[in-house]
Structures are given as structure tokens and as C-alpha cells.
């Protein structure tokens, strides 16, 4: 047994370990990560069938459809974010870590975004083509998704932390997270629609950046607090 000497704190390596583990888990059982992406694809491909295949109508709806699809897909994937760790006791170890809990949950949310929001962003151009989104709005769509989906993960993780003890807490999670999602949805679709009409959309992008910065600063504190209180 090694001696009881003190070691210097290395929070960064703990964060890397958290991200690595969550990504490895996502790769080992990909069903969990593929589910939201399949949902996203289905929403976008069923829309022309259900509403109209008309090119102009679809182009008008495209921004909203893609963003609502992405939003619901992220919501779908959030339920298991902390619950799987709670089920097998790994959450206790996260809470028992000497490193700051907000830092560790930020790492967890980041790996969640990599397996959900980031993948959805990569799929978005395909869906935009399917829905005849004008090509000049592509960059706006990608920027809003890159800035907006991390906010969805961060805000949703607060709800996921609060419902970690609730069996099948999906509905409750939706109710908690949706109010926080609405501003993101409004500004993101606003930006894409402005781009479609060849108008400047910098203002919308700046607002989304504000949400992202606020989310990165404040959401980890709320998530960590919620986990400590709920996992008594």
C-alpha cells in the first residue's frame, strides 16, 4: 500500500477522465446516442410527406422544423444523463470527488453535447437539403446550432439533475427544461429566417452567444447544487 502522502490537485485530468469515460460508454452502447439522431431524421423526413412537398412552403418552414426537431431530440437524450450514474452508484463517486463538482458536471454535459447536439449539428445540412432550405441560410443554421445546442444540453441538464430520483421523469424534465429552451428557439429560428430573407442576423447570433456564456457560467452551479440536494 502506498504511503499517505498528499498529492497536488488535478481537476483537469479528472474532467478528461469523465469525458473519456462517457464517450467510451456512448461508443460501447451506441443505441442511446443514435436514438435522438434517428428521431431528428424522422421528423425532418416525415414533414414533407405530412404537410406538403411544395418547395417554397418547405423552405419557409425548414428553419423551424430543423430547430424543433433538434430541440426535442436533445430533450429525448437528457433523461439518462445522470440517471444511469445514479442507478449504479457512480453518481455517489462523482459527489465524493475532491474536485469541484461544477467542473465535473460541466465535463459530463460537454460529453453529452458531443454525443447529441454536436452530432445533430453535423446532420443538419442533410436535413436542410431535404427541406429545400436556401443555401444562403446554411451558414446561419450551422452557427445557430453550434451555439444553441450546448445551451440546450446545459439547461436541460439542470432538469435532468432535479429529476434524477424520479422514475420515468421524462415529462417532468420536459416541463422544467422547455421554458429555458424557448428563448434559444426564438433567436435561432429568427437568425435562420433573417438569413433566408438576406437580412443581417448578427444580433440574433450575439444573443445566442450570451445564452451560451450564461449557461456555461451558471448552469454547472445549478446542476451541482441540484445533484447534492436530490441525492441525499
Amino acid at each position, binding site marked *: 500500500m502506498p504511503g499517505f502522502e498528499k*498529492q497536488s490537485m488535478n481537476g483537469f485530468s479528472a474532467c478528461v477522465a469523465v469525458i473519456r469515460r462517457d464517450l467510451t460508454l456512448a461508443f*460501447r452502447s451506441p443505441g442511446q446516442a443514435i436514438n435522438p439522431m434517428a428521431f431528428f431524421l424522422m421528423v425532418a423526413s416525415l414533414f414533407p410527406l405530412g404537410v406538403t412537398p411544395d418547395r417554397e412552403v418547405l423552405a419557409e418552414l425548414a428553419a423551424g422544423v430543423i430547430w424543433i426537431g433538434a430541440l426535442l431530440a436533445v430533450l429525448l437524450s437528457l433523461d439518462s444523463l445522470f440517471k444511469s450514474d445514479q*442507478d449504479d*452508484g*457512480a453518481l455517489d463517486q462523482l459527489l*465524493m470527488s475532491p474536485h469541484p463538482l461544477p467542473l465535473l458536471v460541466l465535463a459530463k454535459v460537454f460529453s453529452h453535447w458531443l454525443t447529441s447536439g454536436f452530432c445533430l449539428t453535423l446532420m443538419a445540412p442533410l436535413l436542410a437539403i431535404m427541406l429545400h432550405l436556401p443555401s444562403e441560410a446554411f451558414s446561419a443554421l450551422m452557427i445557430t446550432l453550434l451555439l444553441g445546442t450546448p445551451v440546450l444540453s446545459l439547461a436541460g441538464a439542470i432538469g435532468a439533475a432535479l429529476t434524477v430520483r424520479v422514475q420515468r421523469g421524462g415529462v417532468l424534465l420536459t416541463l422544467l427544461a422547455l421554458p429555458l429552451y424557448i428563448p434559444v428557439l426564438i433567436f435561432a429560428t429568427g437568425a435562420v429566417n433573417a438569413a433566408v430573407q438576406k437580412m443581417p442576423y448578427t444580433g440574433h447570433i450575439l444573443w445566442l452567444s450570451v445564452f451560451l456564456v450564461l449557461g456555461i457560467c451558471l448552469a454547472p452551479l445549478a446542476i451541482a447544487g441540484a445533484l447534492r440536494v436530490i441525492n441525499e
Partner: protein
Amino acid sequence: MLNVLQLSCERDDRLLFSHLSFQLCPGEILQIEGRNGAGKTSLLRIIAGLSSSYTGEILWDGQPLAKVYADFRLDCFFLGHKPGLKLDLTPLENLAWRSRLANTTVSHEGLLAALDRVHLAGYEDIPCSHLSAGQLRRVAFAGLIASQARLWILDEPFTAIDLEGVVWLESLLEEHASLGGMVLVTSHQPLTDRQGSLRKLQLETFAKDVLYDEQEVLDAGL
């Protein structure tokens, strides 16, 4: 050193224990005994800092626990009912994650040696979903060996462990105590005291005391 002073815990309007005081010094093993639902797990979770539904004081090295949580967590290893292992990962990956999280850097060889000590050599690259319940417990014990924590908090560690393993685990606890570590353990298993380091704490006595006290108050009132 761990000092618990006048600790009381209430759960669902039921008093689990009250005015519980004890001290755990380096080199000691303290076994918490009590029937099912007596509050053993609640007590361990309170001391581990996972639960704050208590009144009373907990001191770690003479300081209030709430003030020195970061130091305490560096020095404490908590093993609950659920060992916290991911079934999709291999034992080695699970151990590496946990030691990284607990800020202990253990080399690959160190983790292999720990797995060897729990008789799981050769299992390091097999997914945990292929291991039995007892083997999973052993993986968790390997984490215990690899950690550098002074205080071990173990909740029912003997569950799913075979007879040979029970003897082995007891000697592991004794070895930790003899090196100046502290062990807080709940178990229905009667532990044998071979080194004089084992103490036992009956949790029920702290629940009954209060009932008697209340009765006395009532008697005095009458």
C-alpha cells in the same frame, strides 16, 4: 481522526438515532451494527458527506467537516451498496476512472497489481457485464486497494462475497488499520477481532435511549 458528536438523524418522521457520539482513531476498525432499517446506511452517507439531513457535529482532524470537505474527500473512500461500476467498461477502465476522479494517480501496473490482489488477474480486459456479483464487488475492492484514502467507509462490503473472500476482506481491513488507516464498516457478518483493533457500535441503543428519555420525561410530568 473522525469525531462524531451528538449526531441525530430523522427520516420520514422517524427518529433513526439520536445523540450518537463516537470517535474513530487511526488504526481502528469500527463496525456499525443494527437491524434492517436501523439507519446504518444513513449514518454512513451522513459521514461521507452525501447527506445533510442531520443535527450534530462531525469533526475531521479536529475541524468541522463542512469546512474541510475537500481534504476529507481526498482522504475518504466510500463504497456503498452499489459499487458504482459501469457494466460496459472493463475493470481496468472502471478503476482508472475512479482513481482519476479521486485525484490519485495510479499507474497501469498499480491497477493490475490491485486486481491481482483481489484474485481477478486476467479479468482486466473483460467487460464488467460478464462478471458475477461477487466479482464486481472484488473489482470495487481493487479500487479500495489502489486508493490512498485513510478512511474507508464500507456499506455491507461482505454482500455476495464467498467464504474465502470474507476471511480475505477481513485481513485487508486489518492490514489497513495496522498501517494507520481507519475503517468504518456496516455488516451483519460477525467480524473476528484478531488484532484488538475492532470496535462495535450498536445503533439501536441510540434509538432506544431517546425513547426511554421521553418516557422518563412523561413519568416526571405525571
